[in-house]
Every structure is written in C-alpha cells, then in structure tokens.
C-alpha cells in the first residue's frame, strides 16, 4: 500500500463532488430509466441466500419474494451497480493515496467496540431500509431528485433522528 509513503490528497470540494454525483444519477435516469441505490443489492442477495436454504420461507417474505421473480436474485441491477461502486471507490482512493487498512474510530473507543457498533448499526439500518424500501441512495437521493413523497419523508425523518440521537452517542464519536 503506497498510502504510507505518499501523503493523502485533500478531499474534493463537496459541491463539486456532489454535482458530479448528480450527473451520474442523471445519467442513470437517461440511460436506464432508474436511479442509483445500495440496499436493494443486499436485499436481493439475502433473498437468494435464504431461497437456497428455505425456499418456502423466502417466497413468503414480502421483502424477498419481489427479488425472486423475473431474472432472479443474482442478476439484480443494484448488485452490479454496487460492484461498480466498490471499483470506483477503490480507484479514487488509490489515485489519491488513501488506500490503506484501518479501523476508523474515535481515539477513546476500543477497536473491538467500534467494530461491534458498526455491525449492530448496520443491522438496524437494514431493518430500516427494508421497511422504507430503500436507503440514503435509493430513497433519499433518487426519490428526492424525482420529488417522491416517500423519498422526502425518509430523508427528513432519517436525518432528524440522526441529529437528535447524536448528542446521546457522543461517546462513540468524540
């Protein structure tokens, strides 16, 4: 990893990066008539995994059944998109000298605790994304740009709750 020798470049201007992201989202609407997302890739993969073990259970789930129709759970559009996200992020980090192994945490929080909170927070987000039918990308960003009522509701509620709970969780992020 060359991140150690070479100092990492500063992050891009947030408005510029945001405008670039907006053009990618617009390109998605123009090319394939749908926006970006993330949680759907996990939902479809989970659907495929559960269907392989307990097909009846999977078919009875209102979350999974949707992904088991049509092309099936392994050719989900968002799974390919998310593979691209990993690739794009890796290229960007490598070019900027930011590619190295680390556990990012508050200096006062033990490494194991940070990883446990990361895992637990991920689980809670999954339940949220399942009920909301999307996450920050699929509902808030894509739904937001298309002026979806549900997208704006999700965006507003999720950010309000995160801001409201943050003072109680200061210990995690000091």
């Amino acid at each position, binding site marked *: 990893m060359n991140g150690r020798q070479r100092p990492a470049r500063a992050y891009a201007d947030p408005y510029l990066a945001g405008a*670039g992201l907006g053009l990618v989202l617009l390109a998605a609407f123009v090319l394939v008539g749908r926006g970006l997302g993330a949680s759907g890739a996990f*939902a479809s993969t989970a659907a495929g995994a559960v269907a392989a073990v307990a097909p009846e259970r999977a078919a009875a789930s209102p979350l999974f059944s949707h992904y088991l129709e049509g092309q099936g759970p392994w050719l989900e559009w968002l799974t390919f998109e998310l*593979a691209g996200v*990993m690739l794009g992020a890796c290229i960007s980090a490598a070019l900027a000298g930011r590619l190295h192994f680390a556990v*990012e945490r508050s200096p006062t929080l033990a490494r194991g605790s940070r*990883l446990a909170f990361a*895992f637990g*927070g991920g689980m809670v987000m999954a339940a949220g994304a399942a009920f909301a039918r999307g996450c920050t*990308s699929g509902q808030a960003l894509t739904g937001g740009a298309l002026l979806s009522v549900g997208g704006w509701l999700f965006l507003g509620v999720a950010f309000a709750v995160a801001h409201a709970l943050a003072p109680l969780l200061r210990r995690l992020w000091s």
Partner: protein
Amino acid sequence: MSAPLIAEGALGASLAAAIALGVGFGFALERAGLGSARKLIGQFYGRDFTVMKVMFSALVVAMLGVFWLSRFGLLDLHAVYVPLTYLWPQLFGGLLFGAGLVVAGLCPGTACVAAASGRVDGVFVLCGFFAGMVGIGVVLGDFADFFESGAHGAWTLPELTGLPYGAVVAAVVMLALTAFAFAEWFERRVR
C-alpha cells in the same frame, strides 16, 4: 430521440451500464471523503456538513436535469421509475435507519466506499447490514399489513401540494441554497 436509451429488456446493456454508473457513484463519494465514518458523522455534530452539501448538490443537479430534459422532450418521465410511497413503513424505516446510521457511522453506500478503500469498520457495517437483511426478510411476513400500509404508488410532491412541477423544483433549489448558506455560516462560526 427520447430517453431512457437502454430498453428494459436489454439485460446485458443494462447491467453494463449498472457497473459503469456505479464506478462514477463510488468515485464521487470517495472523492468527497464520504468513505470516512468520522467525516460523515461530523454532520450530526455540526462539525462538518459534507454529507448535506454532497447530497443536496447531487439531488439538485439530477432534479434540474430531469426537469429540463423532460421539458424539452428528451426524457420520457413516464418511463423513469419513481420509488413508490408507503407512508407508515417509510416513516418507521426512516426512524430505524437514522438511529442505525449514527451508531454505524456509515450508510450502506458509503460503507461500500469505506470497505473498498481498506476500512475494516466499513466491512463490518456491510456484514451487519447483510445479516440484518436476512433477519428482517425472514420475519417481515408477520408484519405484512404494516409493510403495505399507507400505499400511494408513485406519488410526487407536485401531486401532494397541487403546485406545478417547476414551482416545486424552484422551491427545492431555494431550500438547498438556504441550507448551503447556513452550513457555510455555521462552519465559519465554529472554526
């Protein structure tokens, strides 16, 4: 010519576009620094408004693009999939998601970016997210009524408010500019 350009049945072309668009998505998020949990979480402590700035500028650019392309007849709005609205589960889902987000420090998309740049905490968020999806998917059948409640289909803010599409677009632009001005003022004040 009218977009969407790739026909719905063209699976190969559609999946190739998915990878290419994903590369752009991941590249933009990493450039902005949103693969870093501590930077991302700064949003909720008033230290760093990168999340809001990136999110709102992306939303506004895409929204204006869709609006003008459809106005000039270059994009068929009816062929663009609008995420469906289910009021109550989306309200509840937003509550859970926001709570999980401050604990995890990364959302699913940015956790992918974190993981791809070598951050192990990002990998753990993704593992937790996948485990959570398996768990909630298996039990969701018991909450099927709630899951389907408040269904309004592809429901948009212009339909909700009765205002013209262009007026809502202008209002969102004003909201974003106000939020940007506030963030710049607040960041300067804290520094």
